[in-house]
């Protein structure tokens, strides 16, 4: 690969890469606002100025150049730190603050604001601007976002997203000079499904998420890499949390899955993660028709005793799993059924697959109609899944014991069939329509509270990581399932998700080669 010199250090670059791209790839920060990997280059913020002292032909440039729009060339010598560059960075920073309200104390972006960060790193630290600042009026521009134009630094990322990525082009710029404003067309409210991305792209607090407004100071947030549970696309995300509470979900870049984006519906799934009203927090047993709290150990033993009394085996034992169960959980459930009962009756009800959305733009194909995060995984593990499956209804009709993992989507017919069983044991995080028929409820952790993997629609295995602790007595299904197995007389003990995944990879041909390590932060696509 050809090399150029950035601050006297050799940096390799690919043909066509700009100085900024090559520097970022090499881990050197050059401050910038308008440049974004996903968007066209406009070179208007001028924050990324560098000094090209040698173009590679012995001649330098008299003026500073924008590193976002200048391609690297072999032998080029570039300074991003000399006095000339510092002066350039300073004046751009100072000028950006000329009309900026500096209302950081009440700005949601504070703490994760490029303007704030660069002002500290590259600014002079004081202002000599003593005039009335330009102000814009209030505008209500979107159902999911807030626009505070006084904070806008006119980088045009929002407009380019609307034009180049989202496609509606309903964000644009109006007027000119210092009155230039980024806005929607008159009275137009943005209603599309990807508004949150505008807030992510906006380098300052001009566009923020309504949902996050005044909720949390950004610097308090811890960010745990995870996967969105909203649909079988499995957008890579971070779960941003503080004090045991999930505050928001943000997309995490994955070129092969969601690029830089996620949908607003996906963002809102964080609400359920915090839900208290439907959450199951203690083990429950049905006594005289009503579910009453019970102790974990006693309850597990009671389940084992009841199973023994029923002397259920083979097809009399059926498992029904939710498609947000992790691969590891499904694997253990399958083992439980096969090992303790010799049963192969495991199901994961699934709505009929509708056609994948088509469209020329990547974003048009992002959201999958299948709203479950691990349908492919269940299928690959041999869970029977078609909805309206008469086999499933029939199997349930014959069942004495039913294990329910999560809250599988079920038709009334299916629920009625299950109701006939002698014992229904549910391992779940939330109340659902299964609540009324379960004899035993074992409270489980939800996706933000545990480790595990899901396989998305591309059969890409992606990892969830624990961000917060579960409530009350809720336990990890990876612990509940072995405990159940042990109570039922099998040898089993808790193993963390990576270990279960290793066993799964060995035991299931279709998962050959998968491991926690290869899954990493970007996932692993099955052969």
């Amino acid at each position, binding site marked *: 690969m050809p090399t150029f010199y950035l601050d006297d250090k050799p940096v390799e670059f690919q043909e066509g890469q700009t100085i900024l791209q090559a520097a970022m790839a090499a881990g050197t920060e050059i401050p910038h606002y308008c440049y974004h990997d996903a968007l066209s*280059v*406009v*070179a*208007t*913020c*001028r*924050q990324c*100025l560098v000094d090209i002292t040698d173009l590679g032909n012995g001649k330098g440039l*008299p*003026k*500073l150049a*924008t590193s976002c*729009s200048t391609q690297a060339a072999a032998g080029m010598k570039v300074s991003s730190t000399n006095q000339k560059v510092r*002066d*350039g960075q*300073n*004046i*751009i920073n100072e*000028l*950006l603050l*000329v*009309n900026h309200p500096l209302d950081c104390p009440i700005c949601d972006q504070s703490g994760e604001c490029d303007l704030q960060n660069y002002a500290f790193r590259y600014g002079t630290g004081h202002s*000599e*601007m003593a*005039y009335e600042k*330009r102000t814009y009026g209030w505008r209500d521009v979107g159902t999911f976002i807030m626009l505070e134009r006084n904070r806008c*630094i*006119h980088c*045009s990322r929002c407009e380019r997203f609307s034009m180049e990525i989202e496609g509606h082009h309903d964000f644009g*710029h109006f*007027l*000119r*000079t*210092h*009155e*230039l404003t980024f806005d929607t067309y008159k009275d137009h409210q943005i209603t599309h499904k990807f508004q949150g991305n505008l807030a992510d792209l906006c380098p300052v607090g001009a566009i923020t998420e309504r949902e996050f407004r005044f909720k949390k100071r950004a610097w308090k947030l811890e960010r745990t890499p995870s996967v969105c549970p909203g649909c079988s696309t499995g957008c890579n995300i971070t779960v941003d949390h503080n004090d045991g509470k999930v505050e928001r979900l943000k997309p995490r870049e994955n070129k092969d899955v969601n690029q830089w984006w996620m949908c607003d519906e996906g963002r809102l799934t964080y609400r359920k993660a915090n839900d208290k009203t439907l959450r199951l927090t203690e083990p429950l047993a049905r006594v005289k028709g009503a579910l009453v709290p019970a102790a974990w150990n006693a309850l597990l033993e009671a389940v084992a005793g009841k199973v023994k009394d029923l002397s259920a085996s083979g097809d009399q034992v059926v498992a029904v799993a939710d498609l947000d169960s992790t691969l590891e959980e499904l694997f253990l459930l399958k083992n439980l059924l096969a090992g303790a009962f010799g049963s192969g009756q495991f199901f994961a009800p699934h709505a009929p697959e509708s056609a994948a959305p088509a469209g020329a733009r990547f974003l048009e194909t992002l959201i999958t109609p299948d709203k479950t995060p691990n349908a492919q995984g269940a299928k690959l593990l041999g869970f029977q899944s078609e909805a309206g499956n008469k086999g499933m209804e029939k199997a349930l009709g014959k069942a004495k014991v039913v294990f329910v993992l999560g809250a599988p989507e079920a038709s009334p017919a299916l629920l009625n069939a299950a109701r006939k069983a002698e014992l229904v044991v549910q391992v779940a995080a939330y109340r659902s329509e299964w609540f009324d028929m379960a004899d035993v409820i074992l409270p489980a952790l939800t996706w933000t509270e545990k480790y595990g993997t899901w396989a998305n629609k591309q059969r890409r295995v992606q990892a969830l990581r624990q961000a917060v602790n579960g409530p009350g007595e809720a336990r990890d299904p990876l612990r509940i399932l072995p405990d159940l197995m042990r109570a039922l007389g099998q040898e089993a003990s808790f193993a963390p998700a990576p270990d279960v995944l290793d066993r799964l990879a060995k035991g299931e041909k279709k998962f050959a080669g998968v491991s926690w390590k290869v899954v990493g932060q970007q996932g692993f696509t099955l052969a």
Partner: protein
Amino acid sequence: MLKETLLLAKNIRTDGYDGSLEAYRRAGGYTALEKVMKSMTPDQVIEVVKASGLRGRGGAGFPTGMKWGFIPKDRKPTYMVCNADEAEPGTFKDHFLINNDPHLFLEGMILGSYAIGCNHGYIYIRGRSVRPAQRINEAIEYLYKAGLLGKNILGSGFSLDLTVHRGAGAYICGEETALLESLEGKRGQPRVKPPFPATHGYNACPTSVNNVETLACVPFIVKEGAEAFKKIGTPNNYGTRLVGISGHAAKPGIYEVAMGVSMKQIINDLGGGVRGGKKLKAVIPGGSSSNVLRPEEIDIPFDFDSVAKAGSMLGTAALMLFDEDTDIVELAYRTILFYNHESCGQCTPCREGTFWLRNLVRDFRENLGDSQKLERIGRVSQQMFGTSLCALNDAAAGPIKAFVTKYPEEFKKHFI
């Protein structure tokens, strides 16, 4: 006593000349075109223009032949665009040519189109310039009738259509890439370069943007040869300039001079000096984007290189004179007001810097100045210089910096 050197204004200075096609042809017009259509290849036209050393008259002084040479030969269509926007304050030379002798630059434009392989050219002119636009349209109509435009011009096989495009009137639309955006029907604001218009111009096709006066030089060069052109002017600054004298001049107007003659003489001999016998306080030599010169700095040759050496810019050769009664602060304020108003706003230094400078200069105008503010004007204009996407930013910052450095005493008069 300095006299005019008539190259472009020769017809116009002839009594009774009305600028019609007939009159132009009678004066030898379109013989360059005939010559080229009969006996010259496009490359030969580019070569002769290159050899003449012709430099652009739109402001930047870039060699025209070289610009045409950048147009790739293997990509079609290519476009010739004539920049007739003429928005630079103080400038009225292009409209002088258009109104009085439109065929001169049109012939140059046809020659240039032939040279770069363009079959459809555009003339971009601001919407407010109603009469000049009409004038060009009339001239074009006659050219079609005479077979000098349209299909198969003079039986050469070369075809060319010309369209006048009237802009909505923003100064920034004179900047060539903003002009192209506007021509494409978009908001007029400059594009990031590279790619340059020569490869990605109008509709992303190879395009050459040329000023009216630049194109008007071409027929002479083609007809008389590069050497004849180089006999006028000084090395690297060949040909004449149409100097637009305005301000407190006794005889304002357009004067054509050979490049390199004394600027002082132009002012005194042609412009008649300062009107009313007043003393000269300041001269802006090349439109409002060029730095002001003090009276003691004006005894220089009037050409690209000499004016640049004096710390200013030949620009559009719009010489503005200011007499002893002029308030330089007022002049500075109007200048920054203009650039602030005309900034397209997309880049930070220009959008915010012109706003801030405008506020600072206004303080002096309202007698609220102080030494700190004076220093601040100098610092901000100095630092913002050279940091933006197009030249408008520098056209604002440079002159403001020049006003405060060259006329501090004027600003001090407005201290609080």
